[in-house]
């Protein structure tokens, strides 16, 4: 470091915080926590905060995808299945609560959800009975999607089905589940989904106060999920996932039970998606098959890819951006949205394979700075303080 230059405290702190992978992650975590817990609630009204809360439920899926796809190399095009199952489990509980005999007294069978009554069902199906209990519902939110992921992964990974074939099968499952939900209208609410959800244990979830509280619950759960993901990626399990992506066969011949490890991370990703789905139902007030099928599942993958599939933080911002874009475009130019999302995906794949998180900011900053200093004062370039670690990046020295 040059002796005459006295870098400001801020710059020195920034350089320290950026110096190692671990401290960078800690800083990113702090920034994310501040953004989610302070900046959004302070600057946004309840309506928009609720919208952000909805977008953030997709961030759960993205965090799961980073672990399972970005690190483990297991591409799932069926995360909507787990998101939807988590959401449906929660919606079934809320629907039963909203269908008490008093408020459904005009039905031919009072006390069951309205869509069942319309479909000539006269008693609550056995499938629905556990969802009278809130603790059982919370367990189901995790166990039903996790269990399905476990079965799928057992059937596939133990038979060495992987890569593209696995992706196609997850996509088929997404198609099957959405068709099943639409087809069995009397049990599931069909294409409309489960709507008119009102209260959670007597607490009105549609009030402004409830929306703010649910936003915070969602944000804290997400931060917890990110912390869990970070602990996984920093452990040897994280390195095993990278190794699986690089050379799966070598991992197998190093004595690791690859199928079981892949299953574990796939189930974990499913549980992330399911928690997101349950929080979606709570914040948006309904659940429908349009969040289960192929298109939403692929949008979830694209959101993660745009943000950066090997960065937990990138994937969260990517989901926010992608869903914000979706809301904006589908209101302003509905017919354009699919083209925009396609273009974004191609752009990410061709130009920034690591997504937004892969863009080397210090380097970009330096290039811009150099450009400016060159145009004004040709000799000023050398004296500018460059963080030492950024200067030593492998390709950083190319003029």
């Amino acid at each position, binding site marked *: 470091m040059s002796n005459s230059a006295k870098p400001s405290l801020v710059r020195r702190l920034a350089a320290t915080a950026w110096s190692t992978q671990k401290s960078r992650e800690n800083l990113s975590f702090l920034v994310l926590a501040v953004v989610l817990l302070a900046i959004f609630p302070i600057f946004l009204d309840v309506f928009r905060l609720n919208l952000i809360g909805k977008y953030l439920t997709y961030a759960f899926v993205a965090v799961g995808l980073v672990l399972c796809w970005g690190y483990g190399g297991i591409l799932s095009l069926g995360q909507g299945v787990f998101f939807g199952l988590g959401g449906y489990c929660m919606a079934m509980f809320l629907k039963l609560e909203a269908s008490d005999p008093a408020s459904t007294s005009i039905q031919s069978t009072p006390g069951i959800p309205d869509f069942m009554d319309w479909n000539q069902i006269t008693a609550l199906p056995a499938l629905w009975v556990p969802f009278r209990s809130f603790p059982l519902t919370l367990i189901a939110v995790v166990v039903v999607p996790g269990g399905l992921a476990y079965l799928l992964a057992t059937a596939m990974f133990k038979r060495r089905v992987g890569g593209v074939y696995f992706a196609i099968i997850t996509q088929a499952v997404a198609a099957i589940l959405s068709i099943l939900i639409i087809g069995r209208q009397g049990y599931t609410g069909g294409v409309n989904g489960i709507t008119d959800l009102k209260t959670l244990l007597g607490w009105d979830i549609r009030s402004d106060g409830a929306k703010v509280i649910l936003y915070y619950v969602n944000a804290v759960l997400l931060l917890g999920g990110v912390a869990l993901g970070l602990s*996984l990626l920093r452990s040897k399990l994280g390195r095993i996932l990278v190794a699986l992506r690089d050379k799966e066969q070598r991992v197998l011949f190093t004595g690791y039970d690859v199928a079981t490890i892949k299953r574990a991370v796939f189930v974990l990703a499913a549980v992330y998606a399911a928690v997101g789905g349950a929080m979606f139902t709570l914040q948006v007030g309904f659940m429908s098959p349009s969040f289960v099928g192929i298109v939403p599942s692929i949008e979830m993958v694209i959101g993660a890819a745009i943000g950066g599939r090997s960065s937990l933080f990138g994937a969260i911002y990517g989901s926010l951006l992608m869903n914000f874009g979706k809301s904006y475009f589908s209101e302003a130019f509905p017919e354009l949205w699919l083209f925009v999302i396609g273009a974004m995906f191609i752009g990410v794949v061709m130009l920034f394979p690591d997504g937004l998180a892969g863009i080397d900011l210090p380097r970009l900053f330096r290039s811009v700075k150099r450009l400016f200093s060159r145009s004004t004062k040709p000799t000023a370039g050398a004296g500018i303080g460059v963080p030492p670690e950024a200067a030593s990046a492998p390709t950083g020295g190319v003029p």
Partner: protein
Amino acid sequence: MNNEFLLQIEELSVSFDGFKAVDDLTLYVSKEGVHAVIGPNGAGKTTLLDLITGRTRPTKGHVRFKGSEVTGLHEYQIVRKGIGRKFQTPSVYESLTVFENLEMAYPDKRSWVSAWRFRRTPEIVKRVEEIAELIYLGDRLHERAELLSHGQKQWLEIGALLIQDPELLLLDEPVAGMSVTDRAKTAELLSGLAKGRAVVVVEHDMDFVKKISDHVTVLHQGRLLAEGKMDVIQKNPKVVEVYLGH
């Protein structure tokens, strides 16, 4: 001859759609020394390694390791019994460092739960450093494996096997594509390794085989053609005809 040999392969056959890649092969590997398996292309050498390590299931026959059957076990179970295998193309984890590559192979904490809770201990660090020294990579521990040369990647993969201290090491063409000096270093490395364990080398390079092997098996069209010391094998007219004469 039950436990005299480390690996007993008896009447082993496998066919793919009627094509017999390995045909009624019987082969014994002793507890110590370098055992080379040679043969022209398509002789079934790599298939033989696949059969031993559980990657391919045999149609018929037995593979016994230390007297117990290993056919039908999963690859990872066979590895845990003490059979390490190196692939033909270097397979190391490019995005991990040399240290992390070796640490990954350290034979402990191999379930996903224990891997999540894994903590680096001084013993592991010491062991990794020892192995890195042995494979000539002592000063490159913290470099990413993708920056290594071809030969160094091959050594790293051998090192990743060594850290597990296997009793049987199977190497598929370990010197293919290596420079002359790297070949010499690899030969030295292998003869060191063969003290106290068996090393089976599948190889094309005759000079290399002559330099390192104690025992040679020649395969041809999935069958055993000849067996013995290299200098005897080289004079065998059948071997000369199918292989060495080329």
